[in-house]
Each structure stands twice: as structure tokens, then as C-alpha cells.
């Protein structure tokens, strides 16, 4: 290039600085936006890659349904490509804080893998210490140094014995950490509590009593060098995964054998013990029976003897009685005889005595009387003797009688005591017999039970399945997967957004460059006549365009690469826990964006020059014939046309005369309005989501969750108690469980909602079609109602069937009866009866939705519920949940501002350029009408009517485009767990119009002053 030409180029820039700046600005915007937003996605990915490398996040995770052993570790260590294998034990536990239960994922700290970032305090040294995540402290009110109580479900060891998993369940919090495994707010699902893990915590490996592990983390050789979102990384990991898959069969079999053998051995042992015990019990029972039998016999003989003795005694006493009676009889007869004799004898004696007396009186001699007297004496003596004899005989008899009585009572007493003894013995025996019977029954029962158990164990043994190995990689990490998804989403937006800017850039460059070339026709002609080559002449314009592009690109890239990814990352930083974003100069996007910009600007320069350079120098040096005026179709409608003022007629004709400008303005303004409408529309869609979800759809005021493992009776009592709590007006009893749908590609958090009484559900949750206010869906036996986004993700419609795996891992097929409006999370609604039918399980309530009298009592009621009802695990008020989500949503407003500001810049550049071109192109005409005596205002109207009209057309099309752009952005931004309430409020359109008009007005004011400055002398100059 010749020196003079270079000088000319630089002067040209100086002289047409406005034009230069407008090209530069639009390039800056286009390049900055494209490169900046495009770079956000790789920068975000880079950030996570670096973070994962620093924290040595695992590449592969192996989980087994039967746990993993040291042997597994050793085997995996030897798999080719495996760098390191570390083990950990993880379990979901319940931590209570201030009466509220949280489900916490407890895991042992791993060395040199998934390294925790210590934010505060220290890492645990032994089983008495633990570390928690930050939100645990902020939500539960605990702080470092507090001791928390952990309720962990007991686990079965290999032998099948239930064991406490933790050595101690009271553990002190010693630090706050950040785990690289949880970069999103999502903590995964759990079978405990409400089905979701709330927090994570880490404990010392020593705290665990188990010897087997739940997780093995594996790092692959060379994986950390590769970028974790690259194909190369995927190949490395996939390779190792396949190799692990190969060896897994053997390990699974080994683990199966181990557990099977252990169980079998245990059964054998149990069988033996059982047999022994059975024998022993039997023997004992037999012995006891024998003893009883012996005793019985003894008693029987005793009884017989007793009877014999009694009989003998009886007969003996009888004969003795007889003898005595006979003796008595004899004695009595002797007595009688004696009495008779006595009487006779006494009579004799009396007679004799009388005789004697007589004799004595008579005086009979003594000799004669003596014998008689003697005889009387003798008789009396004899009588006395006989009486005495009799008396002694009677006495003897009496004595004998008494003796007999004594003997009798003695003997009978003895016999009776023997009898009593025997009766006692008999009683004892029957008691013993009874005891024995019971003991026997007991023993029998025990043995039956033991036998049954054994049978069961044997049955279960058959049931021991070969373990499944889940070989996972980072893509199965919910946080990582959704993060990568989000970055892709941003990349999507980045592809579409800058298109508007580039189209405008191309148009602006084209109009500017062709105007410039036109203005310099004569010069071009002169140069051509002087013998400069086409390229040399064109190079001025090419350099002009290139300089604008290079400077614009440079500034654009500097701003774009530094600012935009940071804004995007900050936005996402609110949803992900990641270190400060990595910002990188992205060569790829630099080349693409600068090339695109170059094509737009330099292309426009070349195109404009080529047109001029094709002509002969002479033609060029002659003034270019002005573009002929043309009648426009509007003129045919005379009625309208004749009513138009001149300026309007000129405007109408001009619009059709300068098609490039017409197009550029409309596209630029349209882009501006569309971006603003999209910005506000995005906000409308997001901000409406929360009030819709909590208020229109979820109408209940409070959710009360019950603890796990309650009995049906406890649940009933608790529900009764809760419903009688003051302040609660109505309630519905629900079973809510986390379920899985297997044919969904990425894991989603889906809750199944089963109301006890589906008729009442509508008081608490509205099931209806979106946009249809009147028709409310009711649950029925036919099928389930699923939420809209879930249906979209699954690509199903009403009438399709779904395979749903409930929280007990039972899979069942149900029909979709309706699809309901829903914005946050995924839900499946099902009647109690249908649930019982398809899952063959009982309905067990675990949640209560309730309405309360008014909002003021919320806090008090919450405390009261937790205090009075020990079976409640949590009370969540809808208003709280609403607040949490609202905060997250507020951050989205930033996006809206980015859109509005960029839209404004776009509008400004376009309109400014338009007005500049418009003035420079028509300077002669404008100077002429000034000479004609147009007031400033009239001159301004003459020009701006066109701009205004084009702006209005642009705005109208922009409103329409904004509507579609909103839907596009909303669809690409939307996270899987949510559905934006796609809508653009009327006021957003109004904002779109107003803001565009404001930018337009700023440009118009600038135009007004530019017009005032136009020198009328221009009208006298010859046409160039």
C-alpha cells in the first residue's frame, strides 16, 4: 500500500469518526456477546474440571448390593488403568435438632480421593468427631463444638446379625466442609424421612463397626490430565469401567459364595444346636414324667395299704367290740343272775335272819343259832363276794373298753394322717404333671419356632441373590450431571443470541461502507484513472473496516471473556457450590467471532467497493445519478395519499427507496424490543412460578411429616392428636414416597403422593390443566395423574402406561389418566385403592397436609406440634418454602438486566448508525430544505418521521419476536426439576415498547442537534 493511501485511510477515520465508531461498537457488541456467552459454558466446565482435579474426585464409583470387601479392593487395584481405590461406608441417618429431624447422608472420610474442602474447624480425628456441611449449621442452628445425636438404622452383618453401625451415636461437630461430590443443592433421595437427603456429613472411618464397605471410589490413570467433559476422559473412564465390568462377575460370585457359605454354616450349626436342644428337652421331660409316674405308684400302694390297714383295724376293732359286748352281755347276764341270786339269797338271808331273830328271841341257843347265824354270815359274805367279783369284772370290762377306744382312735388317727399324706402327694403329683405339661408345650413351641426359623433361614438362603454391582461414573453424580447440562443450556442460548447482533453488524457495516464508497466515488475514479489497482483502492476501505473490526473485537473480547462468563457463573454459583470460576481466553471462540465479524465488515467493504470498481473511471468521476424517485403502492390509494403531508409522502417514498436501511432499522429495533420483552418475559415466567406453585397448586399451609417405623396404631393416634391441635382447620392424610421411573434417562426426583381420601385432595392440592381454570381433575381408579414437566421429560401422554418403582423397589405399571399443571419438582398422584391394588402393599400414612386459621400462628403452631407430638419428624410451612425459592428466583433478575442492557446498546448502535447514514446520505436535500426555510423542528420531522415509522414497525415485529424469543430462552434455561410458567405479561410488552422508545428518543435528540449543525452551504456544492 502506498503511503499516501495509508494517510488517506487514517484521515478518513478521523473525518468519519462517527461511522467508524458505529461499526466498531456493533462489532464490539457482536463479538463480545458471542465470545463471552459462548465462553461461559467452557469456562464453567473448566471450573468444575479444575475443582474436581484438585479435590481428586473419583472417576468411577462401585456400589454393590451386598457391600464390598477388602478382597474387592485388592482385585480392583489390579485392574489395568486403575490408579487408586479407596473405600468408604455411607448410610443415611436421622439427626435430630430442636425436635426436627433431618435426613443426613453420613459417609466416612476417604483418603486422597473426593477430598473435602475444610471451610472451618478441623477434620475429625476419631469416632467421637464429625464434620458437616455449612447449610446444616445454618439451618439447624447448631455450631461447631455441638454434639449431635445420630439415629442410624441397625445393619446386618454377613452372619445376618443386627448391629449398630456407629460405635457411638453422640458425635461432636468439629468442622465445616465442602464435599466435591455435592456441587448442587441436590443431595439425592433417601428411604428415610420425607424421602430426600437434606445434608451430608463426614465421620472418621474408625467410627464404623462394619468391616465391609458400601462404596469404592476409583481414580483412573491419566484421567485427571484429561478434561472431564472431553471425549478423551470419557474414553479413559469407559475403558476402565469395561474392565471392571469384566472382573466384577468373579467378585460378585465370590462375595455371594462368602455370604452364602456363612449363612449355610450358620444354618447347619443352628440345626445341630436345635437337634441337641430338642433331645435334651425331650430327655428332661421324660425324666420328669418318670418321676411323676413313680410317685404316683407309690401313692397308689400307700393308698391300698391304707385301705387294708383300715379294713384290718376295722375288723379287729369290730371283733374286740364284739368280745367286749359279749363280755358285757355275759357280765350283764351274770349280773342279772347275780341279782336274782342276790334277791333269793337276800330273801334267804332275811328269812334266815328273821328265823334267827326269832330263834334268838326264842332264845335258841347259840349252838343252834350259831350255825344259822353263821350260815347267814356266810351267805352274806358269799353275796358280797359275788358282788365284788362282779364289780371287778365290770371294772375290768370298762378298762378293756377304754383301752379299745384309745387304741381305736390311735389307729384311726394314724391312718388318717397317712391318708392326708397321700392326698398331698397326689396333689403334688398332679401339679407336677401340670407343670410338666406346660414345660413340654413350651419346649415344643420353642422347638417349633426354632424349626420354623431354621426353615425360613433355609428358604432365605435360597433367596440370597448374587450381588449387583453398580459401576457409576461422574455422570451419575446428580450435581455434576445437572451442572454439565446447565452449561450446555447456556451454550444453546449463546448460539442463538449473538445471531441478532451479527445480523445487525453485517447490515450496519454494509450500509456504512457502501455509503462511504458512494461518497468517495470521485476519489475512487481519480485513483483508478491515476492507475492504482483495484486492490490498492479497495484496501483503504478494507483497512478501514478491518481496523474497526480489530479494535471492536479486541475490546469486545476483553469485556466479553471477562465479564459475561463471570456473570453467568455468579448466577449459577447461587445454585452450585463451586470455587471461584476459572476464566480463560478461548482461542476457538475468538477465531470464530472475529472471523464472523470480519466477514460482516470487510465483506461489506469489499462488496461495496467491488460495485464501484467495476465502473469506468470516467463514470465514477461523473456524479452518480441520484436514486430515482418511485411511486409506492400507497399512492394508488389516492384517498390516503392525497391526505398525506409532504413530509409523510417523502417518508413513505424514502422507506421504500432505501431498502437496506429499512431492513437494518427494522431488524435492529426488532432485536432490541425482542430482547427487552424476552428479558422481562423471562422474569414473568420465573416470578409467576412460585406464586402459582405455592398458592394456586399447593394450597395447604403446612406439611407435617411423621417419623419412620411407626406402628399403624401410633400413626392413628398421632394423626388424631394432630388434627385436634388448635389452629388446624382441616387436614388430609397422605403417603408420600420417593419413586423411580426407570425409562427416564437422567435420574429425577419424583414424589408419589397417595392421599387417604382422594375426594378431599382438591382442598389442598389443585390438579388441573394449565390455563384451564375451571376443570379440576379428580383421582380415580383408572390411573395416576402426573405433573406436566414429568410428562414432557418422559415424553408420555394421557393414556400411556408408566412403570413406577416405589420406595420398596416394587415395580408396577399404571396408566396415566391425566396430566396436571405443576412448576416445581415432579409428582405422581395416585389413589390409595389403586396403590394397594398395584403394589399389593398397605397404605401407611407418613405425611399430613393441613390448613391453618391464619399465618400469624405459624411459628407458635410449629413449636407446639413438635413439642406435643413426639412422632413428628418435621413441620414445614408453605410460606417458608416459598421464601427459599423466591430468593433463588431473585437472582434470575440479573439475566433480565443483562438482556435489557444489551438490548439497549443494540438499539442505540442501530438507531445512531441509521440516523448518521440518513443524514450524510441526504445532506444535500436537508441543506436545501433548510434554505427553503424549514424550521429546525420541521427539518427534524422531515428526517425523523422515517426513523419513527421504522422504529414503530420494528417494535411491533419485535413484540412478536420477543414472545417467541421468551419461549426459546425459557425452554433452554429451564432446569429439569422445574417448569417455568411460560408467559409474557402485558406490562412487559409495554416495557419493551417504552425502553426501545427511550433509546430511540436519545438517538433522535442526537439527530436533532446533528441536523442543526448541517451547513446550508452543502446545498450549493456540486453533486459528488
Amino acid at each position, binding site marked *: 500500500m502506498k503511503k499516501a493511501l495509508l494517510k488517506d485511510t487514517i484521515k478518513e477515520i478521523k473525518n468519519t469518526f462517527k461511522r467508524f465508531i458505529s461499526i466498531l461498537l456493533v462489532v464490539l457488541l457482536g463479538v463480545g456477546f458471542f465470545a463471552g456467552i459462548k465462553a461461559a459454558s467452557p469456562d464453567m466446565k473448566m471450573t468444575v474440571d479444575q475443582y474436581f482435579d484438585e479435590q481428586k474426585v473419583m472417576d468411577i464409583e462401585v456400589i454393590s448390593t451386598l457391600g464390598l470387601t477388602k478382597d474387592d479392593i485388592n482385585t480392583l487395584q489390579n485392574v489395568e488403568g486403575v490408579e487408586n481405590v479407596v473405600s468408604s461406608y455411607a448410610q443415611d441417618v436421622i439427626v435430630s435438632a430442636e425436635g426436627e429431624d433431618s435426613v443426613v447422608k453420613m459417609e466416612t472420610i476417604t483418603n486422597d480421593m473426593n477430598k473435602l474442602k475444610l471451610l472451618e474447624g478441623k477434620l475429625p480425628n476419631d469416632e467421637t468427631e464429625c464434620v458437616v456441611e455449612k447449610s446444616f449449621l445454618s439451618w439447624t442452628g447448631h455450631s461447631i463444638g455441638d454434639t449431635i445425636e445420630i439415629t442410624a438404622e441397625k445393619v446386618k452383618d454377613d452372619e445376618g446379625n443386627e448391629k449398630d453401625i456407629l460405635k457411638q451415636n453422640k458425635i461432636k461437630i468439629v468442622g465445616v466442609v465442602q464435599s466435591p461430590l455435592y456441587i448442587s443443592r441436590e443431595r439425592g433421595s433417601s428411604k428415610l424421612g420425607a424421602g430426600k437427603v437434606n445434608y451430608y456429613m463426614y465421620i472418621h472411618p474408625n467410627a464404623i463397626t462394619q468391616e465391609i464397605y458400601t462404596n469404592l471410589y476409583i481414580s483412573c490413570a491419566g484421567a485427571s490430565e484429561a478434561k472431564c467433559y472431553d471425549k478423551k476422559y470419557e474414553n479413559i473412564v469407559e475403558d476402565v469401567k469395561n474392565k471392571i465390568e469384566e472382573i466384577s462377575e468373579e467378585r460378585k460370585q465370590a462375595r455371594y459364595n462368602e455370604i452364602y457359605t456363612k449363612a449355610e454354616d450358620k444354618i447347619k450349626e443352628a440345626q445341630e444346636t436345635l437337634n441337641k436342644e430338642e433331645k435334651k428337652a425331650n430327655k428332661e421331660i421324660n425324666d420328669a414324667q418318670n418321676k411323676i409316674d413313680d410317685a404316683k405308684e407309690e401313692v397308689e400302694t400307700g393308698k391300698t395299704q391304707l385301705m387294708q390297714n383300715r379294713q384290718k383295724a376295722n375288723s379287729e376293732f369290730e371283733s374286740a367290740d364284739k368280745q367286749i359286748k359279749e363280755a358285757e352281755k355275759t357280765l350283764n347276764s351274770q349280773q342279772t343272775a347275780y341279782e336274782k341270786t342276790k334277791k333269793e339269797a337276800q330273801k334267804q338271808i332275811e328269812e334266815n335272819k328273821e328265823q334267827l331273830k326269832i330263834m334268838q328271841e326264842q332264845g335258841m341257843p347259840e349252838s343252834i343259832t350259831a350255825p344259822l347265824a353263821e350260815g347267814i354270815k356266810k351267805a352274806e359274805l358269799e353275796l358280797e363276794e359275788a358282788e365284788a367279783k362282779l364289780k371287778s369284772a365290770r371294772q375290768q370290762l370298762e378298762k378293756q373298753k377304754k383301752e379299745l377306744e384309745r387304741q381305736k382312735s390311735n389307729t384311726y388317727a394314724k391312718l388318717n394322717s397317712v391318708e392326708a399324706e397321700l392326698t398331698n402327694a397326689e396333689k403334688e403329683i398332679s401339679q407336677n404333671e401340670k407343670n410338666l405339661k406346660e414345660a413340654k408345650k413350651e419346649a415344643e413351641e420353642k422347638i417349633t419356632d426354632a424349626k420354623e426359623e431354621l426353615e425360613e433361614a433355609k428358604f432365605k438362603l435360597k433367596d440370597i441373590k448374587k450381588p449387583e454391582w453398580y459401576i457409576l461414573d461422574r455422570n451419575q453424580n446428580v450435581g455434576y450431571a445437572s451442572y454439565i447440562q446447565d452449561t450446555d443450556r447456556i451454550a444453546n442460548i449463546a448460539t442463538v443470541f449473538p445471531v441478532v447482533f451479527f445480523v445487525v453488524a453485517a447490515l450496519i457495516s454494509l450500509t456504512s461502507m457502501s455509503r462511504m464508497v458512494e461518497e468517495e466515488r470521485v476519489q475512487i475514479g481519480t485513483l483508478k484513472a491515476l492507475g492504482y489497482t483495484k486492490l490498492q483502492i479497495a484496501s483503504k476501505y478494507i483497512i478501514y473496516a478491518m481496523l474497526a473490526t480489530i479494535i471492536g473485537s479486541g475490546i469486545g473480547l476483553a469485556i466479553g471473556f471477562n465479564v459475561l462468563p463471570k456473570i453467568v457463573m455468579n448466577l449459577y454459583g447461587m445454585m452450585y457450590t463451586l470455587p471461584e470460576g476459572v476464566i480463560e481466553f478461548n482461542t476457538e471462540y475468538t477465531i470464530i467471532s472475529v472471523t464472523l465479524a470480519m466477514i460482516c465488515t470487510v465483506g461489506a467493504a469489499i462488496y461495496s467497493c467491488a460495485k464501484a470498481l467495476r465502473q469506468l473511471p470516467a463514470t465514477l468521476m461523473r456524479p452518480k*445519478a*441520484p*436514486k*430515482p*424517485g*418511485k411511486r409506492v403502492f400507497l399512492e394508488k390509494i389516492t384517498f390516503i395519499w392525497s391526505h398525506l*403531508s*409532504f413530509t409523510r*409522502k*417523502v417518508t413513505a*417514498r*424514502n422507506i421504500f*427507496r432505501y431498502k437496506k436501511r429499512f431492513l437494518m432499522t427494522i431488524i435492529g429495533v426488532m432485536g432490541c424490543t425482542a430482547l427487552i420483552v424476552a428479558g422481562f418475559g423471562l422474569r414473568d415466567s420465573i416470578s409467576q412460578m412460585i406464586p402459582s406453585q405455592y398458592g394456586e397448586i399447593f394450597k395447604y399451609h403446612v406439611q407435617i411429616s411423621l417419623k419412620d417405623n411407626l406402628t399403624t396404631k401410633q400413626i392413628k393416634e398421632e394423626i388424631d392428636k394432630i388434627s385436634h391441635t388448635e389452629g388446624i382447620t382441616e387436614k388430609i392424610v397422605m403417603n408420600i414416597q420417593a419413586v423411580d421411573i426407570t425409562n427416564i434417562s437422567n435420574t429425577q426426583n419424583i414424589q408419589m403422593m397417595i392421599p387417604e381420601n382422594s375426594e378431599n385432595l382438591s382442598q389442598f392440592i389443585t390438579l388441573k390443566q394449565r390455563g384451564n381454570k375451571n376443570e379440576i381433575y379428580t383421582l380415580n381408579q383408572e390411573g395416576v395423574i402426573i405433573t406436566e414437566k414429568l410428562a414432557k421429560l418422559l415424553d408420555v401422554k394421557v393414556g400411556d402406561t408408566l412403570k413406577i418403582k416405589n420406595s420398596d423397589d416394587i415395580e408396577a405399571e399404571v396408566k396415566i389418566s391425566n396430566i396436571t399443571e405443576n412448576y416445581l419438582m415432579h409428582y405422581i398422584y395416585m389413589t390409595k385403592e389403586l396403590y394397594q391394588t398395584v403394589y399389593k402393599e398397605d397404605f401407611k400414612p407418613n405425611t399430613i397436609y393441613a390448613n391453618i386459621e391464619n399465618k400469624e400462628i405459624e411459628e407458635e403452631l410449629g413449636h407446639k406440634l413438635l413439642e406435643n407430638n413426639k412422632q413428628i419428624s418435621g413441620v414445614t410451612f408453605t410460606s417458608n418454602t416459598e421464601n427459599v425459592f423466591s430468593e433463588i428466583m431473585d437472582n434470575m433478575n440479573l439475566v433480565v438486566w443483562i438482556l435489557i442492557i444489551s438490548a439497549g446498546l443494540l438499539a442505540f448502535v442501530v438507531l445512531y448508525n441509521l440516523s448518521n447514514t440518513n443524514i450524510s446520505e441526504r445532506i*444535500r*436535500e436537508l441543506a*436545501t*430544505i*433548510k*434554505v*427553503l*426555510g*424549514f*424550521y*429546525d423542528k*420541521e427539518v427534524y420531522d422531515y428526517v425523523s418521521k422515517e426513523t419513527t415509522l421504522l422504529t414503530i414497525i420494528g417494535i411491533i415485529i419485535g413484540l412478536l419476536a420477543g414472545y417467541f424469543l421468551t419461549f426459546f430462552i425459557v425452554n433452554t434455561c429451564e432446569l429439569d426439576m422445574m417448569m417455568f410458567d411460560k408467559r409474557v405479561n402485558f406490562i412487559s410488552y409495554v416495557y419493551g415498547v417504552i425502553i426501545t422508545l427511550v433509546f430511540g428518543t436519545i438517538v433522535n435528540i442526537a439527530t436533532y442537534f446533528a441536523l442543526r449543525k448541517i451547513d*446550508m*452551504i452543502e*446545498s*450549493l456544492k*456540486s*453533486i459528488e
Partner: protein
Amino acid sequence: MAYIEFKDVVKEYKMGEVVIKALDSTNFEVEKGELVVIVGPSGAGKTTALNILGGMDTVTSGTVKIDKKEISKLKEKELIKYRREDIGFVFQFYNLVQNLTAVENVELATQICRRPLEPKTILKKVGLENRMNNFPSQLSGGEQQRVAIARAIAKNPKLLLCDEPTGALDYKTGKQILQLLQDTCRKEKMTVLIITHNTSLTPMADRVIHFKNGTAYDIIKNEHPTPIEEIEW
């Protein structure tokens, strides 16, 4: 008092450090209804004088009076009003609005002034009754200049200023245009000032002002102007 008074007018342009004197104490007078031809070489200051007379430029010092109105003292807005109501301007390159038809170009001027003449009548007068609805690009140069003159006189101005009206036209057409201007002056009793570098046109004028080096060095009153058709050049 003369209709137009140009008294001690100085006009300086600052081009960076350099001050260029375009007019240096220029004096001349013109009577109402005269046809005036201003002649002089390029850069003599005749256009500057015309611009000042047309209210398109201001003086650095001196006074300019037209019909007793001192335009050298007018503010910008008053100048516009002056241009709007008192001045008709005919350009060398016609300066028609390409997007307006002949009659519309005339109307463009008439719509802004207080007592305009009927555009169609004027166009008839300049001999364009059959070309009224044509766009400038469909008209020949002479025809375009006729439209421009029609536009200027339709405003019914006090002063018709013409800057090299025949400069872009061929001899014959130029002659016709000058005839038109002379007729306008005579018939409408309008004061007409024509700038030209062609001195052979001077006989047609009532008054000839010669410019040289930024000043009117010679003013000649022509008591018997020659009709245009008799002038040859």
C-alpha cells in the same frame, strides 16, 4: 433608500489558525424589481454575498438591509423565517427532492409560507403543465431547473436568488432558463439576483455588480437591458 442595502459588509472564515476574508467591506444597493447580475471570477466573494442575502450565512461586520429589514441583525430563528417568507433560491444543481414529483417539489415550498402561489399555475407558467407528475429523474436538466424556479417563485418571495442557474445546462436550455428569470422579474415585479461567471450575460441585467477579491468593485446600472434572446455567448 434602496430596496437592498449591502453596507461595509465583512465576512471572515476561520480555517484553523488562518483567517480568510471572503468579503472585505463590500457595498452595493439594489432597487426593487430589478434584475441584477453579479459577476466575477471564482473566489471573488459573490456566492458569499448571495448566501448572506439569502439568510444562509451571517456577516462578521457591516449591515445588510432588505426592504428596510436589517437581516444582518436577525437571530437564527428569525433568519429561518426570513428565508421562508422572503427568499426564493435557485441552485446550480436544482436541488430537487428526488422522491417528490415536480408539483410536489413546488408544494414542498408552498406548504411552509404564508401567501404562496398555486403550484400548478406556477408550473404552467414555467411551461411544465405536462410534466407535473414526473419525478426529477424523469425530467431533463432544463426541466428540473424550471421546477426549481417554480419552487422558488411559488413562495412569492421578495427576492429571487439564483446561484449559477445555467451552470449545469447547455446553451439553449440555459437561455430558456434566463428568459424565464427575466420574464419573472418583469411580469411579477420580483427582484431577481443572478450569480454567474459568464460576463456576457450582463446586458440582460438592470444592474450589474462586478466582484473581485472579496469586494464589489464596480456597479453598473443598465438603463436599457437587452432581452435574453438577443444575447449571444
